[in-house]
């Protein structure tokens, strides 16, 4: 069976969930061979093997942390040369898309970004994309070269599928471009202790209706009662009430959880672009005409300052 390269997104050896989802999709089109780079690369092997990686190609060098994007492109290109895969799958993060694009150009291949599903097809893997703020679903494929496809988080279930996961060192020679953009400083994000927004099963978001940074505590309490991540509309972010890393929408994160709860959010097209593929959608808004109600499975027309605390209380009671 043909091999499929999977680019591993990890933090010091801890594999992030979207990569495990990619392994599920990769197994539909071939045998997954993972590529893990940077500090802790070899530590990823156990988790990757458990989810179907037959091989884990690893390489560590200071360049991966010290320079932007290109060293990773060089390494992935080396992996393509070593394996001659049937396809290359990359998680659809901002950086993942940039790496994938440059790789595609170098190996003379087309690229598809932000796939939400992937199947084997007669002419290579067929990707499903959700476009125009999720109002259309397209099926597309790469028609030249080795398909390079980036896949959004929550596009497939994580499945246990034990495989060998043999670690092999990847030979990488960095290109002249590798050191072009230097990373001169790095401030890691402080952990909130809540799930990662793009990976969470439940997302609770607040918008302009929350009316102040201090009131976001209401949204956070609801989120914590459900073990959810916290999101915000751009209006709330622009007002300085919540960090931009939590913005949901076209220019923020795109989320696709099992449950999305929007409070005090009108449902503008750019917000919908980032949450419309959520499985169950719930909204609390005092305006019965708000467009968000067109999307909901359940909506409460009311003041969020009444509804949200009551909901949080009731959840706590029910959960005991």
């Amino acid at each position, binding site marked *: 069976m043909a091999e499929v390269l999977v680019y591993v997104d990890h*933090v010091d050896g801890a594999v992030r969930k979207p990569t495990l989802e990619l392994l599920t999709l990769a197994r539909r089109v071939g045998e997954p061979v993972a590529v893990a780079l940077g500090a802790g690369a070899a530590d990823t092997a156990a988790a990757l093997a458990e989810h179907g990686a037959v091989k884990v190609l690893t390489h560590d060098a200071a360049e991966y942390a010290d320079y*932007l*994007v*290109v060293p990773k492109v060089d390494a992935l290109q080396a992996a393509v040369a070593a394996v001659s895969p049937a396809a290359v799958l990359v998680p659809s993060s*901002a950086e993942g*898309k*940039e790496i994938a*694009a*440059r790789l*595609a*150009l170098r190996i003379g291949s*087309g*690229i*598809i*970004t*932000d796939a939400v599903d992937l199947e084997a097809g007669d002419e290579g893997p*067929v990707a499903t994309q959700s*476009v*125009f*703020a999720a109002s*259309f*679903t*397209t*099926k*597309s*494929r790469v*028609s*030249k070269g080795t398909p390079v496809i980036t896949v959004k988080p929550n596009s497939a279930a994580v499945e246990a599928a034990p495989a060998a996961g043999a670690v092999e060192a990847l030979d990488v020679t960095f290109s002249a*471009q590798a050191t*072009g*953009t*230097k990373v*001169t400083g*790095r401030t*890691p*994000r402080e952990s909130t202790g809540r799930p990662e927004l793009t990976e969470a099963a439940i997302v609770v978001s607040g918008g302009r209706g929350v009316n102040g940074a201090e009131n976001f505590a209401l949204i956070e309490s609801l989120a914590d009662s*459900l073990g959810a991540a916290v999101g915000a509309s751009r209006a709330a972010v622009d007002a300085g009430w919540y960090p*931009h890393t939590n913005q949901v929408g*076209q*220019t923020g994160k795109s989320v696709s959880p099992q*449950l999305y709860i929007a409070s005090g959010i009108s449902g503008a097209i750019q917000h919908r*672009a980032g949450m419309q593929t959520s499985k169950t959608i*719930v909204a*609390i808004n005092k305006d019965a005409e708000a467009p968000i*109600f067109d*999307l909901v*499975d*359940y909506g*409460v*027309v*009311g*003041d969020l300052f*009444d509804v949200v*605390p*009551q*909901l*949080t209380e*009731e*959840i706590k009671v029910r*959960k005991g």
Partner: protein
Amino acid sequence: MSLRIVVTVKYVPDATGDRHFADDLTVDRDDVDGLLSELDEYAVEQALQIAEDADDAEITVLTVGPEDAKDALRKALSMGADKAIHVEDDDLHGTDAIGTSLVLAKAIEKAGYDLVISGMASTDGTMGVVPALLAERLGVPQVTLLSEVSVEDGVVKGRRDGDAASEQLQASLPAVVSVTDQSGEARYPSFKGIMAAKKKPVQSWDLSDLDLEAEEVGLEGAWTAVDSAAARPARTAGTIVKDEGEGGKQLAEFLAGQKFI
């Protein structure tokens, strides 16, 4: 010497209009009003600020797109850019991201540049890959997704807010930069700006001006193929209740019924 800035701007269908696909599965550009992609206004704004801080700078705005894409150029010129280049050719219809980057790179090289500034993503394709592709093609540093950017003594610096960390980046010119919508509100064109834009030069280039062949671009030359496009089925109408004092509890009941609690 003057700092030559090229800003890439895309003409896109209005996101608040009824966007859809034509029979050949390309974007239908006839039925929906087009405009300068809002996210490229941030690129124009940063170019204007960098130019204001430089002793001498010239801003060229560049688009690849149909006839109407001139509107996007006019808007950028009225914001304050100096001149414009419009790459237009019937054979460009249906070009994919790899092809678009080829045309843009050729045009940027022909125009001459020290700094290319792009938006973070278009509002229609939303791939967020063209700036990285341009850096790869031009063989210059990629300094992308910046929320803060400055240029001094031939060096570009900026802040990139990623998922795991916020990074400070630095590269020597020439370079390709992209900026996010966090980089600073874009200015509105003034009346004076709008009048002045009418007199600013707009050059039109076609594929032959860029030494490109029709087979290298367009639907035929694309390295990707769209097999089908279907409107997403409308979500089935949900239950909507008015809060009469029990709204939170009713919602909890719904969530429990769905096994979320």
